[in-house]
C-alpha cells in the first residue's frame, strides 16, 4: 500500500516545462513514477520528453486520468495552481514551491476543509514511497523500502535520518515531507492517521522542529489514536526566540514553539524523543529488533 503516492499514482506536474519542474518531474519518472502529463498555460499540445503538456489541469485529468498533482510554479502563482488542481478533481496535491504567502495558505487550508483532498506542502520536498513512486525532490537512492513511516517538516534532515536508517538495514514505507511553512496542507496528525491505517507501516518516525504547536497536537493524537510505535526527533534546541531559522515556520514566538516544549509534550505522552539524527535511528532499530 504505502500512503499518498504509490503504483496507482498518475502524476501531473504543474510547471513541467520550467527548468526545475522538468528536472524533477523527469527524475520522478525515471524512478518509476507514472508521470502522465504536464500543465503549462499556453504550451498545451507540446510535450516534454514524450509527456504531453496541457493548458489546464482539467484537461490533464480528462485526457490522462491524472489523480495527483505536483506544483512547481513560482510562489506568486502557487495558490492559483493548488486551487486549479483541487477544483479539477485531483485527489492529492503536492506543492513543492517555497515562499507561498501565508494568507494564501490560510484561505486554501480553510477551502480544503472537508473536501477530502490531501495537500502536502507547500515548501516541502514531496512524498516518496520507495519502490513505488517518488513525487518531489527527494533523492530516492538514499532510502530503502521497509516498514517505517517517516514524516518531517524538513528536507535534508529527513535524508539524513533515512540514510541512518538505511545503514542500519531499516527501510521506509513512505517518506512524507510536510513542509516548513507556518501553515501547510497536511499536518503531522493528518499523516500519522494515514500511517496508522497503512498495513505496510509498522513504526513511525516524526521529525519536528521549532515553531507552532503541531508536534504538541501530534503528541495528544498519538496517545489517543496511534497504536504503532512512534519515535520523534526535534531540531532547534539552541535556536533563539524571534528568529526565523531558514523555514518560514521555524520560529519561536515568545515562549511558544520551543524544542524543549515539544520534547516535553511528546515525552509526557510516552513518546521517545531522540537528541540527534543518529540516536533517532538507533531508537527505531532498538524498537524494531525487540
Amino acid at each position, binding site marked *: 500500500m504505502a500512503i499518498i503516492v504509490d503504483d496507482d499514482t498518475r502524476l501531473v506536474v504543474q510547471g513541467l516545462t520550467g527548468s526545475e519542474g522538468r528536472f524533477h518531474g523527469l527524475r520522478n519518472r525515471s524512478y518509476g513514477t507514472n508521470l502522465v502529463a504536464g500543465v503549462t498555460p499556453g504550451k498545451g499540445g507540446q510535450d516534454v520528453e514524450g509527456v504531453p503538456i496541457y493548458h489546464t489541469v482539467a484537461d490533464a485529468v480528462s485526457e490522462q486520468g491524472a489523480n495527483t498533482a505536483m506544483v512547481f510554479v513560482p510562489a506568486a502563482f502557487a495558490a492559483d495552481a493548488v486551487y486549479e488542481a483541487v477544483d479539477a478533481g485531483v485527489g492529492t496535491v503536492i506543492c513543492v514551491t517555497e515562499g507561498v504567502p501565508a494568507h494564501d495558505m490560510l484561505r486554501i487550508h480553510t477551502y480544503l476543509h472537508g473536501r477530502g483532498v490531501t495537500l502536502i506542502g507547500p515548501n516541502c520536498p514531496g512524498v516518496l514511497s520507495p519502490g513505488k513512486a517518488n513525487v518531489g525532490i527527494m533523492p530516492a537512492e538514499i532510502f530503502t523500502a521497509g516498514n517505517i513511516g517517516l514524516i518531517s517538516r524538513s528536507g535534508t534532515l529527513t535524508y539524513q535520518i533515512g540514510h541512518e536508517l538505511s545503514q542500519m538495514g531499516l527501510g521506509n514505507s513512505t517518506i512524507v515531507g510536510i513542509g516548513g511553512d507556518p501553515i501547510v496542507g497536511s499536518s503531522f496528525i493528518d499523516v500519522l492517521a494515514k500511517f496508522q491505517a497503512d498495513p505496510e507501516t509498522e513504526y513511525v518516525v516524526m521529525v519536528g522542529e521549532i515553531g507552532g*504547536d503541531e508536534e504538541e497536537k501530534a503528541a495528544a493524537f498519538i496517545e489517543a489514536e496511534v497504536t504503532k510505535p512512534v519515535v520523534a526527533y526535534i531540531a532547534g534546541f539552541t535556536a533563539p526566540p524571534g528568529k526565523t531559522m531558514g523555514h518560514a515556520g521555524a520560529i519561536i514566538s515568545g515562549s511558544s514553539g520551543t524544542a524543549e516544549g515539544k520534547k516535553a509534550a511528546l515525552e509526557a505522552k510516552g513518546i521517545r524523543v531522540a537528541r540527534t539524527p543518529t540516536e533517532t535511528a538507533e531508537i527505531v532499530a532498538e524498537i524494531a529488533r525487540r
Partner: protein
Amino acid sequence: MDLYEYQGKELFRQVGIPVSDGRLALTSKEARAAAEELGGEVVVKAQVLTGGRGKAGGVKLAATPDEAEAYAQDILGLDIKGHVVKRLWIELASDIAKEYYLSLTFDRGVKKPLFMFTTQGGVEIEQVAAESPDALVRLHVDPLEGFQPWQARRLVYGAGVTDPSEQKQIAKIVGQLYDAFVRFDAMLCEINPLIVTPDGLVKALDSKFTVDDNALHRHPAIAEMRDAEAADPLEALAREKHVTYVKLDGDVGVCGNGAGLTMSTVDLVTFAGGRPANFCDLGGGGSAQGVVDALSVVTSDPQVKAIFFNIFGGITRCDEVARGILQALVEMGLDLPIVVRLDGTNAEEGRRILAEAAPANLHVSPTMLEAAKLAVELAA
C-alpha cells in the same frame, strides 16, 4: 518584515484607523522643524524594532520646538536592547483618558486570524493574559467568511466597553484592522495602546505591524520600507548574498544545507559542549559560489574560531560543495580550522577532492557527531 511605528501608522491611516498627525525626523534639527510645523505639544518617539523604548528613555513629551530638538538630541543614538535609534517620529501629543489593547494575529495553531481585545491596554498583553485572562477577549475569524460586524460587537461588548460612542468607534476600527491585515498580508497588527481621549475620541497611539516576507512581492511600497541599516550587519550582508543566516553568540561557525539539518547541526555543536556562532543555511542549491558566499558571511564574524561545514547531498552534489570549499579557502585566504562532513549524493567524490587538495586547516569527518566534537575542540 517588522515595520516601524510610523510605517505601521501610515498603513493604519490608509485603512481609515485614526492616528495622530506626525512627522519623521532623522536629526534633531528635523525634529525641531517637525514640532514647529505640527504646532503645540509633541511627543518625540524613538523608532526601533523592539519593545520597551519608553522605559529606555526613548519617548519624551516636548512642550516646545526647543524641547523637541533637545530630546531628539538625547534619543538619537540611544541603544535600546541592541537597537541604535536613528529615526524619530514626532507626533502631536494626545491626552489619554483610557488605554485599550487591540490586535489581530496569525494563529498558526488554529489556522485562522485571531483578534484580541482588552480594556486593560498599555501593558504587555502576555501580562494581561496571565493575570486577568477574563479581561482578554479572543476571537478567531474564518478566512473565507471574512470579517463580519458581529465579530467587532463580540469584542467590544465582551470586553465591557460601555460608552456607546466608544463601542461604535472601536467596532469600526476592528473592521479596519481586519482590512489592513488582509490587504497588506500582515502576520501581526497590534494597537497598544488604543486610547480614548478625554473628549471621547478613539485612536491608535502606537502600532506594531509585521508583514509576511513571502508576500512582499505584492506590496512593493511596503518592501521599500525595509531599513537595511537596522538589521545586524552580518544578517544584512547575508541577505545581500542570498544566504540564510542567523547570528548566535558562540565561536563555532555552522554551515549546513537545508534549514532542518542546519538547526540539527547547531544543536549538535551545543550538545558537544560548544557554542555555535551562527545558523547558516546554504539552501537547496549548494553551488560552489553559494559555498563561497556562505563562508564569507560566516567568517565575517570575528568571534568565529572554527567552522563546522555539514552537508547531506540530495539535489546538492557533494563534489560541487567540495570544490566550493577549496575555492573559498583560496579566494578568502581562509586559515580558520574547518571541519567538513559530506554525505549523500557524490559524497565519495567530494571527500576525494578534499583529500587530494588536503589544506592544512581542513579536517574531514565521517559523521555529524564526530565532526561536531572536533569543531568544538578546534574552537577551544
